[in-house]
């Protein structure tokens, strides 16, 4: 995380960081960033969508990729009225589609 200042003296200063390079989000951080309850996050851990380090919820530490996965899973659950297991399945398939697209792109078949 680096302290940066924006152009000009009047602009506010704030800390920026690349989320995916973070490794130590706590359960509370994750709940907050997803506007979710601990119960929902625990459920996502149980069905394997999120993979924290640490055994007990109090020691859980999530990396930044988990935040993105949690947000997508919760959005799918809410907006499509499916349960978390259904959202998890959709997420797995979306990941697979994304990796296939990347692969296609590398092969040069998908250049617009």
């Amino acid at each position, binding site marked *: 995380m680096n302290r*940066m200042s*924006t*152009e*000009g003296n009047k*602009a*506010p200063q*704030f*800390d*920026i*960081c*690349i*989320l*995916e390079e*973070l490794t130590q989000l706590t359960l*509370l951080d994750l*709940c*907050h*960033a997803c*506007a979710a*309850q601990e119960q929902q996050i625990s459920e996502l851990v149980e069905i394997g969508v999120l993979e924290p380090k640490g055994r007990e919820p109090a020691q859980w530490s999530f990396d*930044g990729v988990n*935040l*993105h996965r949690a*947000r*997508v899973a919760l*959005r*799918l659950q*809410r*907006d*499509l*009225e499916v349960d978390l297991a259904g959202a998890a399945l*959709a997420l797995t398939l*979306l990941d697979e589609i994304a990796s296939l697209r*990347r692969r296609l*792109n*590398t092969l*040069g078949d998908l*250049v*617009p």
Partner: protein
Amino acid sequence: MEFKDYYKILGVERDVTQDEIKRAYRKLARQYHPDVSKEKDAEARFKELGEAYEVLKDVGKRASYDQLGASYKGGQEFRPPPDWGTGFGFRGDGSAGDATDYSDFFSSLFGQHFRQGRARRPPPQGKGEDHHAKVSISLEDAYAGTTRAITLSVPTLDAGGHVSTVDRVLNVSIPKGIREGQHIRLSGQGGPSAGASAGDLYLEVEIQPHPYYRVEGRDVYLDLPITPWEAALGATVKVPTLGGTVEIKVPEGSSSGRKMRLKARGLPGNPPGDGYVILNIAIPPANTEQAKALYRKMEQEMSFNPRAGMGV
């Protein structure tokens, strides 16, 4: 403001049952969900669907909306009737979409407080709400880093208790080596909080497709056209990379598809990505008499059958 035809948005007739409304919404929501759909206007369509469903799934709100009659058409100029909304009870228990984005049309019919939509749970520790937005940059900017002015519409309460939005501009420096789909967190730039610290702002990075580079992770791929004689005889050729022009040695006897690695010529990082050049032999057009004569000479003097391995 414009009248919104919620039935048309859901693609149903005005006399359908509640079950049919639910079915129509669910089907379209799967089709246009921004996390699932690749369609360009998916986000806008999905918001519209959420708003239509929010009204039509609730028998009370639907009855109210139906009171406006079928005489209005989508997009038509609309003003709510003076006696609007009397005798109906609304419940703000919406769950579809992001209710904060509902249209003015919706707010004029169902009140400002519905704009807050589903009751947002008070964030733990009293910290302000986190906000999320997208930022789109070029591959060159991702390579070198850049500064972007991000304009945020911030809802505020005016003296009369009405919600209005104020534009706030942030100059965000985007670190070099950022990749597609990564998120930049700006601490304290999200929703404010009375007493406690403000929420954070998350920017999802989108990298615009490049006319000739392709990116996978931190590696950058380039299809490099070469001439048949460069491929056959070997040559030193210039190659563009994000960090500037470099020269590579095309080995003698190269064929199309040959991949060559340019170490650490990809996106910066720890470790940095590599560049990959994929050779692609371009055939000179036979569009002059001289060029045709050269091809004919090759035909006569070179014994070359590219289909020899196929037994023909």
